[in-house]
């Protein structure tokens, strides 16, 4: 976690901004999202958003962390994949307090449990909701 800008701990890869809309991306192991967030924090990045993608065919859930740099205009995407039958990943709300709501929302929509999150009660869904509408196998 000690390396600096050009190559912070997560193996960042440069992508074509004009095609993708972000400059750097990294796929990390689920237990590495917090160190990755910490590295982003140290570099002065700000949290853009957190979301999930349900890869039903691969039996996986992808958690996507978007960061932007307020001073340098850089965009970074950090991804992690977790098994679909046990969707758990550590929370980064300890690093970025703004992650709290984004993680709650992701939990609402995908049922991904963010371990040690202060409050995973439904955020946008009704307070007694026990369904996760953005899962691909969800039907109303």
């Amino acid at each position, binding site marked *: 976690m000690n390396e600096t800008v050009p190559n912070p701990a997560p193996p960042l890869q440069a992508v074509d*901004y*004009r*095609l*993708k*809309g*972000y400059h750097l991306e990294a796929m990390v192991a689920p237990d590495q999202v917090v160190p990755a967030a910490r590295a982003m924090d140290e570099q*002065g990045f*700000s*949290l*853009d*958003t957190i*979301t999930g*993608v*349900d890869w039903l065919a691969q039996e996986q859930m992808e958690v*996507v962390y*978007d960061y*932007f740099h*307020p*001073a340098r*205009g850089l*965009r970074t*995407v950090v991804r992690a994949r977790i098994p679909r039958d046990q969707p758990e990943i550590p929370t980064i709300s300890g690093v*970025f*307090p*703004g992650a*709290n*709501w*984004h993680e709650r*929302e992701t939990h609402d*929509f995908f049922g991904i449990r963010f371990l040690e999150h202060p409050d995973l009660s*439904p*955020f*946008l*869904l*009704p307070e007694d909701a026990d369904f996760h*509408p*953005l899962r691909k196998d969800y039907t109303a």
Partner: protein
Amino acid sequence: MVGAPIAPHPAAIAPKETFVLNLGPQHPATHGVLRIKMTMDGEYVDRAEPVCGYIHRMHEKMGENRTYAQFLPNTGRIDYLSAMHYTHAFVSVVERAAGIQVPPRAEFIRVITSELNRISSHLVWWGAFLLDLGGFTPLLYAFEDRERILDLLEGITGARLTYCYYRFGGLCNDVDDTFLEGTRQFIAKMRPRLKMYRALVTDNIILRKRLIGIGPISAELCRRYGATGPVLRGSGVTYDVRKAEPYSVYPELEFDVPTFPEGDSMARYLVRMEELAQSLRIIEQALGKLPSGPVMAEKVPRVLKLPAGDFCFAVEAARGRFMVRVVSDNKEVPYRVKLRTPCLSNLSLFEEASRGLFLADALALLGSLDLVIPDIDR
């Protein structure tokens, strides 16, 4: 009116005998269906916990169930005051992924209409904010000017709020001379109005007392919560997506990104007032540079399939950074549409920023964040 406003002394908050005040979901200051669970210590806010979701419509799921073109009308309904910007982001992300080249005339018109939309959005904020602060009349003055913009945009799009004017590859129709002439006249009329706004409201001692030093938000707090737009610029950070991740023809136009370092409600107020002037400046230049030509790209497939992968596009909406992420699996409908809306991040810092404020000041802070609740709840 001498001296600094009474800062809430820590000792005043220490011996707590609190009560819970449910502000909303129907409350005059929450502008829609936001609910804030306030733990109050007398007039001091001990903890303000926003409760969201009252107008949740699941736009993201709708995105997975319809084609790209069919999702287009949705984009104007997320933040209905800033519909042009949201549509802009969505058409641009599709154009980026599909490699569609937009004709320059279309891009210039997009900029003109987007900036008109920004002005109308800021005018609504200005009026509603003054309403929060107990001044009713400015709202009507703001709406008088906003009405001119709505008339102009209705003339070219046929709608007054949810325009749905942009298409993949361009615009649904070209602007006419009435619009161009009307926009020029609007700029000429708006500039003296801004001076009037300044004399009537900005310089008013009561307003200054209500905003200066109230609800300070530091740049660091903004960064940790991901706040953007005028909130971030009111904390002295020169971050504007139009400059940071230039899109459309903004690089060809000259404009300043107004920032105020104080971070208080007044700074956020002044950022938006200055942005009104900057938007007028952008529109004026864009009108001058407006090229002739088609407003629609030639080769736009009737059935749009984006290549597999994920694509992002961010724009500077009236309330801050709006980003669309589209994940495609090479089908007619997107695999996943993620909408990153500015109001959610901007509101998330409210709990921390409002701690220890007076109720009236907390509401001034809330108003200065310029929230549109459907934008939070989506």
